[in-house]
């Protein structure tokens, strides 16, 4: 287990970089902040002995998904946001809503009191063996269904993105029709 000060530092860093995602203007800076947040979460997972999850989180989210985000930012040519021009009343309502949620969370945590029971985690907790064991016994069906779902999503994405490739003669015909 990591010492408390390390946890506090990483948690503070996570909050700080998550704020950076929301508060910065330039989308690429936001993306960097988000990547930092996710790496930080990965390190937190590892520190809390969920090593497999931590590494997988870094590989998948930071190594792959964030890169795709970067591509989207580039392809859509997103620029730094101009200060938002929403209506004042709308902003005001949003602020009230956010304050309400914050107050609710505050009341919940401090009113009820979070006394999480100390669970003695087994030695192999978080190891890749125990994770694999659970995935292929208790959660086998959910695991397989998820992979099928992802496969279907990939096939669907390719189907949507695929353009019909015209043969040269068809292309000539089409251009004539357009003229």
């Amino acid at each position, binding site marked *: 287990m990591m010492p408390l000060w390390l946890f506090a530092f990483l948690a503070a860093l996570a909050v700080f970089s998550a704020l950076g995602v929301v508060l910065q203007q330039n989308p690429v800076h936001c993306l960097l902040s988000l990547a930092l947040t996710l*790496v930080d979460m990965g390190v937190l997972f590892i520190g809390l002995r969920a090593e*497999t999850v931590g590494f*997988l989180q*870094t590989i998948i989210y930071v*190594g*792959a998904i964030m890169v795709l985000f*970067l*591509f989207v930012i580039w392809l859509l040519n997103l620029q730094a946001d101009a200060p938002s021009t929403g209506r004042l009343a709308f902003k005001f309502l949003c602020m009230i809503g956010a304050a309400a949620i914050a107050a609710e969370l505050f009341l919940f945590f401090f009113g009820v009191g979070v006394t999480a029971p100390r669970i003695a985690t087994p030695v192999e907790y978080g190891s890749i063996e125990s994770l694999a064991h659970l995935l292929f016994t208790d959660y086998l069906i959910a695991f397989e269904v998820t992979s099928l779902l992802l496969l279907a999503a990939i096939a669907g994405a390719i189907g949507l993105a695929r353009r019909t490739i015209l043969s040269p003669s068809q292309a000539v015909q089409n251009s004539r029709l357009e003229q």
Partner: protein
Amino acid sequence: VPTELLIGAIKAIVILVLVLMLTGSLLWFERKGAALIQDRIGANRAAVFGLGRRLGLPNLGLVNTLLADPLKLFTKEDFVPDGADHFVHGLAPFLALFPVLIAFAVVPIGDVLRIGSHLVDLQAAPLNLGGLYVLAVLGLGVYGIALGGWASNNRWALLGGIRASAQMVSYEIAMSLAFLSVVVTYGTLDLQSICRMQGGVWFGWLPRWGILVQPIGFLLLLISGMAESKRVPFDLPESESELVAGYFTEYSGGKQAVFMMTDFAEVVLVAVLVTLFFFGGWQIPWLYRDGFHFPGPHGAFLRLPALLVSIIQIIAFWIKVVFFCCFQILVRWTLPRLRYDQLMRFGWKGLVPIGIANLIGTALVVAATGAKP
């Protein structure tokens, strides 16, 4: 605990220094090797007070490449183009170099070393999931390159950055598949255990190196690793005939040197991974902890002190690594650059299907025989 901490720090520093030294000498090897292959003389001008010539030694360009050029690079003007994103522009080279360097933390450079009563595992960070760790930090390497290209406010650089990120993400898949086949074969993600399992022999003489179990995995890892390090024939991100210098067009001086170092550090990393997975890491055929057990009907035996065995193993590891570094440099000056569509087709339609087939084949064999090599 303080002793443990001290040992850990020493191990980390030693491995880092070794890697950086190797990275530096590769620079020399690349320049002189290129000159040799292309029938040129190559770097041979700079000298320290003409010492070498007075002693009648040929100038091998060591002063040029290891002293004069780095000095020149780091004292040059650090130019940042107009309209560039200063923060990201400065951050990018280090964002590229850092993940490659920390990847070496889990690399075992030798077996257990016994110093007095202390047993030192020659691995900076003995991690159970060392394999996953390497994949995770390699995935972070994309950012430095891609953002360096973006932050330069230059279209060539941006194109280079986009090419680099697409290429690295694509070849990471082939690399991970090769990786997974090895992991399935040995049943562990710990690099040190993978090394240990390659000790011993088959048929009394054939070393149990991974290349004999995973020949396809070896080719996959080597090729996709070379593509990850973005060097010829996979150097589309910086292809100088189209993009000036690609993602580091707008970098000069020290920051450009850091990008160059990243390239060489990646070459070293690929060589290290290939050595660990397929060529026994620090294992030497027939050398065990007590000495050499030579094969043959009479089985000669040469007893060696444990410390000597450890040292020989460490040296053997680095010799193998240097061999694969040199191999990659040789490939660089031998093959022409691919076209971008060829690169993508080769990755997605060539390496990925082969990798998947290899992984499924490996899994079937392991499941059927339950065997660990």
